[in-house]
């Protein structure tokens, strides 16, 4: 069973629709016991980082997520929260992966980075199985994770930023697989088959 973390961070309907289509067993929850009984975790995320972390703290879920050994997929803000801290609201994040999330702030670059951008694969990580190099995915974000040792792909928007990352059992995608047509569904399938 997959636990989708319910912490008030936006659009869970779309990820639920995809999981239903794929006939996956899942639960939307913020109950620690239920999350502990799941065998995978999805941390969705649309919204503001500092209030998202505040909510995770209030729900007493920070350590549960930080120290989990289950396959973990962070989507959009959910990926950014895996890092040490973020410029968004100057928040301390889960600190699973070292690094700081930064705001897009370049001349001639519109913010948010919104729309379909291609990813350049850096390796053949399991999460990118069946995905061709330069496949387009849908992004909608104003903050980015710089390319780092844990990046499995990058995209370009003013600079090269991480479009997906992996550290041990932790996977993150900056784009929205649930909104990225068949290629996005492939990413979710890859996570389900772990």
């Amino acid at each position, binding site marked *: 069973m997959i636990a989708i973390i319910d912490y008030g961070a936006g*659009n869970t309907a*779309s990820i639920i*629709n995809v999981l239903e289509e794929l006939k996956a067993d899942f639960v939307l929850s913020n109950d620690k016991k239920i999350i502990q009984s799941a065998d995978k975790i999805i941390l969705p995320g649309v919204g503001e980082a500092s209030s998202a972390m505040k909510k995770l703290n209030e729900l007493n879920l920070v350590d549960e997520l930080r120290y989990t050994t289950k396959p973990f997929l962070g989507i959009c803000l959910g990926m950014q929260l895996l890092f040490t801290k973020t410029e968004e609201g100057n928040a301390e994040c889960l600190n699973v992966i070292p690094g700081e999330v930064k705001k897009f702030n370049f001349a001639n670059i519109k*913010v948010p980075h919104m*729309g*379909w951008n291609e990813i350049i694969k850096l390796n053949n990580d399991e999460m990118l199985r069946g995905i061709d190099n330069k496949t387009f995915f849908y992004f*909608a974000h*104003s903050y980015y994770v710089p390319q780092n040792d844990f990046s499995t792909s990058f995209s370009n928007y003013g600079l090269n930023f991480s479009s997906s990352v992996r550290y041990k059992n932790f996977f993150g995608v900056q784009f929205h697989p649930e909104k*990225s047509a068949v290629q996005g*569904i492939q990413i979710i399938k890859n996570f389900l088959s772990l």
Partner: protein
Amino acid sequence: MLAKRIIPCLDVMNGRVVKGTNFINLNDAGSAVELAERYYYEGADELVFLDITASIEKRKTLVQLVKEVARVIRIPFTVGGGISELEDISLLLNSGADKISLNTSAVKNPELITVAAKHFGSQAIVAAVDVKKVENNYKVFIKGGKEETSLEGFNWCRKVTELGAGEILLTSMDKDGTKSGYDIEFLSDITKQINIPVIASGGAGNKEHFVEAFNNGADACLAASLFHYQELKISELKKYLSQKGIQVRL
């Protein structure tokens, strides 16, 4: 590189797609959910639904529509039309919509943009701006184009950007339904003045009009009747744009 987006727009009344010329003369163009699904498979990058239902059942039918659409398509979509309450924005986003467009309600209460952007993130809040030339000035209109305001078009676009909108859906009422091309003059000027994405709307009649808009600052182009009546296929349009050197998702 970030691709330029093609966005079919569905004007919806009670779950049916309607399309008029210059904001009047509505014709039925089919079921909204079915049309949305068709566009998804044809390669649309995103969809916009503008609900023009004016009844007490509006909220219920709109939420139902969003849920049904979210079940069949796997691309982002925006919902707009008479939305003025934070609670309704929340309800629609939680039902599967990605963005909410605010028009009349933002003019009446500009603070709504800021509050909504803070709650749901700028990427979820689209400012829909309807402009029309009145004595050589671009004026902002509200209530589906029926009411002229005292606002000047460029000023209002800059203002909604400052207020926190993540995107502008810019409709030229002079061009809407005419198939004579987008309002390049306004588009070209405004995209030099603001740093959020702009969706050009109103006037698309052929493939060349899209090229023109993209070459003049548009991040996305919206069209309705051209796609509804299959005068132009999205796949064919995208292929053409690609040949013209415009980055699109094929």
